[in-house]
């Protein structure tokens, strides 16, 4: 016989009926007489009754087993609803009203106490481990007489109707038994409880009632929360070994607790039915219990539980170390040796399952995976691939997501790194300093991102994470990274672009930075300095002679005006991301400096088609910086990797640059004031670029770039970028520094304006070209990665 799926209400109802008919309290077989009475009460024609009996297999078996009985009841309902009696109709007819039986036979609310006691006795016949209701469950559904409640199962435990899940040997009836306790049978009315989805899958119906194997499946359908109760006893009282013996006790305990608010029961039932397809789904109660346990170890829900504490805790469960080790492997998703809330819940859940006899999966079931935002990889399917999408308990998903989000975000090592860097940024903050930092952070990232992907871990950057990274990258000491940045970006980005563009052309500006009140000068200085600074970081040439330090003097008016012009010219394309990156600087928008450094990088996005690359670069930029350490690793690895050799070189450069960038915030401030910095950096970058056969200085950026293009794309990208910045720096440096003369401000300003504009256009072109190259490089990279993956049949665990 096919499996029977019953809804919650149906199950309860049927179990009640079964117990009613189970006069002899066998729990297995219903007295035929009673059954017949019942069927007569159903007011169905005799032949229908006979048909039903035949269909359910009772005639075959000669008696009404539970499964038969249930099938029969379902058929009664089917018949009463007017549907044709067929075996298939058992499951196909949805939302079937409960079979109605005429009054006398109707056993609904007024459950005779005898039946309860019979239930409890029947409970005693439970074999295998009945999973005690998970602690934290408000209501114990298991109908079982409390044996002796040895286990300090919290009476508040609500047990999921999934009690059947517990022991494979349990016959399906257990769940109905539990339900029976709840006086929730819809007396003929189904309205009480929404028939939530297909009820537990009673595959055992097809089999014998023992349905051990089927029971597994059935029980598998229920989340194994009950073990929690046992677990509680773990913590309090050692005897998990008495798990089996506990079962009847637990069952009985549950009985006593049964009479809890029916609402909770309904929820449980609903939950159970909704999750029956996914044995690994965590119900709300379970989750709540897990969370509470988590809190006992780690009060901060967003924090970690260190491995040692977790080890102690899980050791209490008395599972063998090997299994605990395996559970840990499964649940420590990010392999950091600590458990976040989600990981902890998953681990707990697995322990609970294991305690109840479930084998540990080889892979973490999807429902237990920590919910990462925008996590594309989370598509790893666990044991029940098809079931995951099933009647997914939406109630559970969101709650698990919300706590997991912050915790997951926190687990990202990058976040930690970036937060550290962030702090350093803010530490060094003087207005100009922060600004320059910000700039330097942003600018260098581009070429690097083009070549090297940030930490491999971060293959699936979450949007939030990305945003955070961006924020951190911008070295914001903003308390609320996302919103302020997003708010600010448009202004800042525009300003940045303008400033940067303005700055670059004028070499004077570099020197001018200090002297003139010109915002221009300050900007280019900063940009140049930041840019060159980046390079110099990696470089060993610390001649601090070079670029003019970014003048702290903000030139609001000027920048604004220029920005206005520039706005028209360089519309912010990437908008937020860039803006976010750029926007960070705590400096007020009028401050040109912050925009300066991002200038070069900002320009990139300016490309019409730069949007995509931009977004790709900016996030890349962001993670890169905090993760430059990873770059070094990657570089080492790449270096050792034959296939990636060519990338290694290019990557080294970016890495160097990245390092520069990363250390920029720290060091840039120090060197910010030195004019020579820019020159130094230029010089440093020049040799680097020279190695690639390009002359960063003198020749206009374009020809240089073009030369590079013929080379390896990767290198040119790097080179060009470095060159570009170098060129700019060189240009800036080469141009005669405008002496600070207050009196000639206007002329100087105009001159610098002109120069800046020229530089702007040059840079804009450079930018677009770089963008294009960046895209090409990225494509190449992607193709290379694909090839690499193909060459590596095995996946890295």
């Amino acid at each position, binding site marked *: 016989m096919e499996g029977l799926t019953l809804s919650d209400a149906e199950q309860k109802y049927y179990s009640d009926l079964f117990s009613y008919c189970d006069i002899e309290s066998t729990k297995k077989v219903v007295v035929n007489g009673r059954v017949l009475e019942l069927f007569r009460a159903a007011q169905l024609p005799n032949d229908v009754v006979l048909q039903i009996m035949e269909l359910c297999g009772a005639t075959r078996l000669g008696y009404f087993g539970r499964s038969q009985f249930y099938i029969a009841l379902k058929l009664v309902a089917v018949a009463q609803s007017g549907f044709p009696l067929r075996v298939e109709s058992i499951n196909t007819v949805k939302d079937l009203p409960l079979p109605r039986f005429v009054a006398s036979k109707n056993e609904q609310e007024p459950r005779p106490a005898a039946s309860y006691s019979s239930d409890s006795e029947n409970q005693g016949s439970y074999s295998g481990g009945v999973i005690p209701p998970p602690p934290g469950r408000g209501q114990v559904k298991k109908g079982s007489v409390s044996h002796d409640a040895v286990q300090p199962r919290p009476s508040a435990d609500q047990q999921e109707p999934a009690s059947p899940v517990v022991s494979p040997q349990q016959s399906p009836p257990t769940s109905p038994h539990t339900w029976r306790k709840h006086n929730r049978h819809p007396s003929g009315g189904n309205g009480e409880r929404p028939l939530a989805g297909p009820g537990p899958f009673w595959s055992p119906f097809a089999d014998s009632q023992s349905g051990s194997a089927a029971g597994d499946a059935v029980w598998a359908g229920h989340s194994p929360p009950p073990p929690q109760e046992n677990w509680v006893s773990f913590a309090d009282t050692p005897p998990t070994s008495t798990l089996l013996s506990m079962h009847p006790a637990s069952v009985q305990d549950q009985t006593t607790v049964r009479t809890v608010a029916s609402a909770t029961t309904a929820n449980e039932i609903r939950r159970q039915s909704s999750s029956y397809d996914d044995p690994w789904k965590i119900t709300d109660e379970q989750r709540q219990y897990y969370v509470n346990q988590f809190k006992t170890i780690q009060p901060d829900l967003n924090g970690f539980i260190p*491995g040692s504490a977790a080890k102690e805790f899980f050791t209490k469960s008395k599972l063998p170390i090997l299994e605990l080790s395996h559970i840990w*492997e499964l649940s420590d998703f990010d392999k950091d040796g600590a458990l976040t809330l989600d990981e902890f819940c998953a681990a707990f859940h697995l322990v609970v399952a294991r305690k109840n006899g479930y084998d540990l999966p080889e892979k973490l079931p999807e429902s237990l995976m920590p919910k990462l935002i925008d996590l594309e990889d989370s598509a790893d399917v666990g044991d029940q691939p098809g079931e995951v999408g099933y009647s997914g308990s939406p109630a559970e998903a969101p709650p698990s997501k919300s706590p997991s989000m912050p915790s997951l975000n926190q687990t990202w090592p990058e976040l930690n790194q970036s937060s550290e860097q962030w702090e350093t940024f803010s530490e060094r903050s003087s207005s100009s300093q922060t600004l320059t930092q910000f700039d330097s952070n942003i600018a260098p990232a581009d070429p690097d991102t083009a070549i090297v992907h940030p930490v491999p871990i971060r293959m699936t950057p979450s949007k939030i994470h990305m945003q955070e990274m961006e924020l951190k990258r911008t070295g914001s000491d903003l308390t609320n990274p996302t919103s302020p940045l997003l708010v600010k970006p448009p202004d800042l980005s525009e300003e940045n672009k303008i400033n940067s563009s303005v700055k670059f052309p004028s070499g004077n500006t570099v020197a001018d930075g200090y002297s003139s009140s010109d915002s221009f000068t300050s900007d280019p200085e900063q940009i140049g300095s930041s840019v060159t600074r980046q390079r110099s970081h990696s470089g060993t040439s610390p001649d601090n002679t070079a670029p003019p330090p970014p003048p702290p003097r903000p030139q609001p008016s000027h920048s604004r005006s220029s920005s206005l012009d520039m706005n028209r010219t360089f519309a912010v394309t990437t908008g937020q991301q860039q803006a976010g990156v750029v926007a960070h600087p705590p400096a007020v928008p009028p401050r040109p400096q912050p925009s300066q450094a991002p200038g070069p990088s900002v320009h990139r996005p300016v490309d019409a088609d730069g949007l995509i690359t931009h977004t790709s670069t900016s996030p890349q930029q962001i993670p890169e910086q905090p993760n430059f350490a990873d770059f070094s690793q990657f570089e080492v690895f790449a270096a*050792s990797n034959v296939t990636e050799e060519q990338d290694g070189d290019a990557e080294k450069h970016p890495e160097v640059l990245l390092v520069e960038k990363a250390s920029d915030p720290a060091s840039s401030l120090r060197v910010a004031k030195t004019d020579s910095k820019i020159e130094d950096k230029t010089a440093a970058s020049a040799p680097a670029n020279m190695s690639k056969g390009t002359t960063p200085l003198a020749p206009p950026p374009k020809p240089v770039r073009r030369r590079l293009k013929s080379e390896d794309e990767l290198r040119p990208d790097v080179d060009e970028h470095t060159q570009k910045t170098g060129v700019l720096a060189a240009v800036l440096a080469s141009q005669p520094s405008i002496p600070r003369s207050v009196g000639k401000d206007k002329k100087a300003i105009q001159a610098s304006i002109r120069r800046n504009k020229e530089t702007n256009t040059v840079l804009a072109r450079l930018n677009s070209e770089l963008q294009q190259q960046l895209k090409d490089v990225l494509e190449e990279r992607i193709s290379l990665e694909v090839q690499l993956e193909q060459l590596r049949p095995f996946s890295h665990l």
Partner: protein
Amino acid sequence: MAMCIVVIAKENYPLYIRSTPTEYTLKFYYMVHTSLDVVDEISAMGKALVYQRELYLGLFYPTEDYKVYGYMTSSKVKFVMVVDSSNTALIFQKLHNSYTDVMCNPFYNPGDRIQSRAFDNTVTLMMIQVC
């Protein structure tokens, strides 16, 4: 391709042994054992081996075309691999990564045999790839 992977602890006792079952199994074990001397030799050379070391031990047995590769981590845990193809760098990297994952498991006591299924899977994958 026959292959054998052994993880050796700092004290030179094996933490994990896995090999493709051929008649060379015993020979593999012997090779691995003798390669320990080579490992010690190289590490005693005093080079500043800060990074992960990879030592190519070359052909031990001329008649057979497999090579023995060694790889030592900074905690003196050695991975020795007998294989007859190259691309060992990657393999060692992956081995090392899996090993660190095993280490991260608080239930794993350093010095125990490695019984992690994940580690087993990694090794299996690598053996499949090589063979």
